């Protein structure tokens, strides 16, 4: 079977992988380079748990042809931390108890990062819009929205 070489930047490291035709980015991240932060939730583009940033923009890795990432930059939740230092979003999610089962969290964090990178002072409506493609079955969204707002204001003590 023919495999294609793909090189891209993965959380600030250059990686090169051989992929099968039509392999999606999610499979390549998880099985190819062992980054299991993005999850499989539907393969349909309807749940958002596989959300990653490609060149800074949110994408659904399950619907992204791995080949199309050649030479681009892919960020996942595994790269959010700065060394041992948690990203403000991670701190806010902890302080607001914005995760229960934790399965949607990696995608939520990346959807939130895409928002805050572009809009550091979002409204509640902006936040709802930013995570509108990400399903959470546990929390009722409220703590997640509050956490993202808190991270934006860097007021990590703010409570829901």
């Amino acid at each position, binding site marked *: 079977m023919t495999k294609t070489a793909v090189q891209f930047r993965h959380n600030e490291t250059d990686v090169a992988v051989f992929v099968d035709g039509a392999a999606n980015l999610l499979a390549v991240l998880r099985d190819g380079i062992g980054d299991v932060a993005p999850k499989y939730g*539907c393969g*349909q583009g*309807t*749940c958002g748990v596989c959300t990653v940033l490609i060149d800074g923009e949110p994408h659904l890795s399950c619907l992204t042809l791995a080949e199309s990432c050649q030479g681009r930059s892919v960020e996942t939740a595994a790269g959010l931390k700065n060394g041992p230092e948690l990203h403000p979003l991670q701190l806010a999610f902890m302080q607001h*108890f914005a*995760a*229960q*089962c*934790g*399965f949607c969290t990696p995608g939520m964090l990346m959807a939130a990062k895409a928002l805050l990178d572009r809009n550091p002072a979002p409204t509640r*409506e902006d*936040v*709802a*819009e930013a*995570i*509108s493609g990400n*399903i959470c*079955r*546990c*929390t*009722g*969204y*409220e*703590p*997640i*929205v509050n956490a993202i707002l808190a991270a934006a204001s860097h007021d990590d003590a703010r409570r829901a």
Partner: protein
Amino acid sequence: MAKHRGRGLASVNYPIGMNLGGDPSQALVHSNPSGKFTVSLSSIDLGQGLKSVTRQICAETLGVPVEDVYVDTADSDTGPHCMGSFASRGTHRVGNAVITAAKEARGVMMEAAAEELEVNAGDLEPDGKGNIQVRGAPHRSISIRDVAIAAQFKQGRTIAGRGIFLVPLSDVDPETGEMTPATCYAHACLVAEVEVDDETGEVRMVEMNSAYELGRALNPRLVEQQLVGGAWMGLSHALYETTEPYYPDRKHGPRDFNEYLMPGPGDICPHHIAVLERPAPDGPFGGKGPGEMCANPVLPAVANAIFNAVGVRIDELPITPEKILRAIKAQGGARPQRATR
């Protein structure tokens, strides 16, 4: 066009612990030689926070800081038997098993400390900060670390404990249904306020006020997670969810999260929650299980609020805009009920 507001109320109770009993859970607790404890379970954390709540239960029972306890779950080679995480049995059944195991470990720990301090174990108490002291004479104390080292390398004691909690299976009288279904009950009452569009049947949530009685809130933040998330699921059940939109017809079953409807972050409303605590005599530190029952009052409260707003009763879930609109048309228009007193 008109939008009508209405309020509805519902009150419920919920049986805690698997119906009829017969569902044991086991726990093992042991200390390493530096006085840090591990709880071994085969129970499951699906997000409800079982690891976290059993960790606090173990720390409280041992009298050590919660940081000194780690809960390891769900390895069938190391975790003893548990029926599983369902039927509101996690906190109640597993929690009680952890208490039993931790008590046994605590007993050995106290004996070991007594031997080191040359006093009666009965005169000792943990200070909750990692030391064991003579009751009334805090200056005479020993760190649990030193106790564990002594137990392991000097006294040859195992600071460990085993626990099981079993509510024996209840018989059911086939003729009358006489039975002992559960050992304790959680309670709730919820008031929902909605706004109904009488031209489209669309419902918008305005506010929810509720009171939940949970025995004891073992961890208020975890309780809050359950009650907030559970109420969202209740709302979702009430107005949106079905795998068969034309039940009992099998047609048009949803295949993805676009077709399977659940409220989005733009559909949620303020929810003010009060927590009441009437400890359950048989619950761990009086705790009941908030996880399952928290969604239940929302469904009828929302249905009753819709009636209060436009005067239609929708007795088939989910209460879709279509069902509301059909009912409004059938009765010749919205009939707002008198404002609830």
